[in-house]
């Protein structure tokens, strides 16, 4: 099914929705309409789109400060996202949290928070509850490479392995924690192995390839649902924009122009679009227009009150 053109179009639409919605948010950050700190996901869309395709509606997703993509991929309301970044009552958290605090329990998003690994133990706890009640629901924790440097991720991995919890750990390695490259923070480039010591199997995938992400996530979700315990997946990617805000980091003392030039051709959305056009899909432009209209409508709805 993953190879079917229909499935790929569906993923392309999800990724396009994330990309265009975030570009709209970036414009509002630049214009000053959005004041709360926004950590944009642009460039990483294949990860949220790939992982969430492997989930059921009742499976839960937990995230961090860069979670617009997780929220939209799991089915969170677009108007709720716009309302939240604009700190309006129409926001998914009633405008009390902003961009870093997204919630949509009706589609399994129980919370995203900016204490970077803060929700990893919480996701393990949700998984604990599912197992405790004998349900086959799965919890997924999304976190970045910087979060891997907080101790409770490692505590949580041990607990999840020990109790064989239905937990999937998605480490989105975009190479930077805020302004610091991984090589300034670690000796070895081996995050996917971080679970070995805790008996959590790990895998590294190309995070800009939605099909590869989906395959890995599906296997991990099956393992979790089957009672075999947690899995760690390191998704290699690159965020195009700065740590926070709409810029490309060029204005805050971090020079990443060369790296960005290397990663732009690996654009996960472009790659998928090219593949679809290669298969003769001719209506991507129309679909893109429809998504643009959806975004306009949602933004209007978010601003109504």
């Amino acid at each position, binding site marked *: 099914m993953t190879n079917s053109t229909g499935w790929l179009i569906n993923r392309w639409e999800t990724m396009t929705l994330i990309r265009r919605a975030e570009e709209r948010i970036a414009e509002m950050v630049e214009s000053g309409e959005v004041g709360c700190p926004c950590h944009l996901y642009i460039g990483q869309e294949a990860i949220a789109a790939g992982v969430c395709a492997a989930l059921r509606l009742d499976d*839960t997703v*937990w995230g961090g400060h860069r979670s617009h993509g997780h929220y939209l991929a799991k089915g969170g309301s677009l108007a709720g996202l716009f309302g939240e970044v604009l700190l309006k009552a129409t*926001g*998914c*958290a*009633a405008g*009390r*949290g902003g961009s870093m*605090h997204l*919630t949509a*329990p009706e589609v399994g998003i*129980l*919370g995203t*928070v900016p*204490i970077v690994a*803060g*929700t*990893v*133990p*919480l*996701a*393990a*706890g*949700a*998984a*604990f*509850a*599912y197992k*405790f*009640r004998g349900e086959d629901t799965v*919890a997924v924790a999304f976190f970045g490479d910087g979060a891997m440097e907080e*101790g*409770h991720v490692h*505590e*949580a991995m*041990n*607990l999840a392995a*020990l109790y064989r919890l239905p937990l999937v750990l998605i480490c989105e390695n975009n190479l930077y924690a805020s302004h610091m490259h991984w090589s300034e923070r670690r000796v070895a480039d081996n995050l996917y192995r971080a679970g070995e010591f805790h008996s959590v199997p790990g895998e590294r995938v190309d995070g800009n390839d939605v099909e590869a992400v989906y395959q890995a996530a599906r296997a991990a979700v099956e393992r979790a649902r089957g009672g075999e315990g947690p899995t760690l997946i390191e998704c290699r990617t690159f965020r195009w924009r700065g740590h926070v805000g709409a810029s490309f980091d060029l204005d805050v003392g971090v020079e990443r122009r060369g790296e960005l030039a290397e990663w732009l051709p690996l654009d996960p959305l472009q790659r998928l679009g090219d593949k679809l056009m290669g298969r003769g899909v001719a209506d991507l432009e129309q679909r893109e227009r429809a998504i643009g209209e959806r975004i306009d409508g949602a933004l209007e709805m978010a601003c109504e009150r």
Partner: protein
Amino acid sequence: MRTLTYAQAIREAHAQLLALDPRVLVMGQGLWSPWYAGSSLEGLDAEFGCARVVDTPVSENAMTGMAIGAALAGLRPIVFHPRMDFMLLAMDPIVNQAANWSYLFGGGGGVPLVIRAVINRGGEQGAQHSQALHAMFMHVPGLKVVMPATPFDAKGLLMAAIEDAGPVLYIDDRWLYGESGEVPLEPFTVAIGEAAVRRRGSDVTLIGVSWMAAECSRAAALLEYAGIDAEVIDLRTLKPWDKELVAASVSRTGRAVVADGGWRTAGASADIAAEVTERCFHDLVAPVARVTLADAPAPARRVEELAYYPGAEQIASAARSLLERKAKRAAA
């Protein structure tokens, strides 16, 4: 009515909660050990099984976070930290996550979690096994803090804590475990936020919480010999504490001694004294007195412990000073 010890009352509350509600579980360190929790959790693992009474690895932070996640997913966990000092490793889940969750996410979806912490003072355990850190937590919006001093309240407040929609920190003190008192057999709750008057009096109000509430009652007995009629208030809940009851009492007596088993600077006593002064300024005939720990780490040597921890005598002495002030003024 039956008499139980404080520790037995805690155990009975756990047992009844586990029996009544399949969503309840207890998790933390030392639950399968015969001595970590004294007799306050004795045999619960055998009675309810290790899946509901979970002795966890030494991971205070992630274990507490896991309990929050489990609570958000519909369980009613009681997290156990047998030494409050170690709970500092769980500051992020308690303060950043549990306390803020309901507000941050639009007012719905609080974290129905009980976090139980034990103060382990004395016993020559030194500064990292002795700390009473309740003031740090009463500082945080979104957290409730209860500190029972009697067997009755030990049971009733635990049962109230589990019914609460948000996170409640339940702090007990090992020094109280042997105290005995009447406790109903059937399940019951003690309202969070309501203090109790332990003794009616007209000369001075003694305000204490947890162990120091028990010391206030002993101080009142000492004062009675000296002809001083003290009113004793056991706060029972430290956040939100019962400002109305305390202010009404102090307005009547004109004098207040706040007794707290924590440190002086920015301690619980500082907040209580400030609030009492604001509310009762025109009725006070003397400044509010405080009996607290000195701003110093807990010593290990027994002889130094005796000097470090104030009790009934210091409270009674503080109360006498307040009455002497009045006498001096009258004489002058």
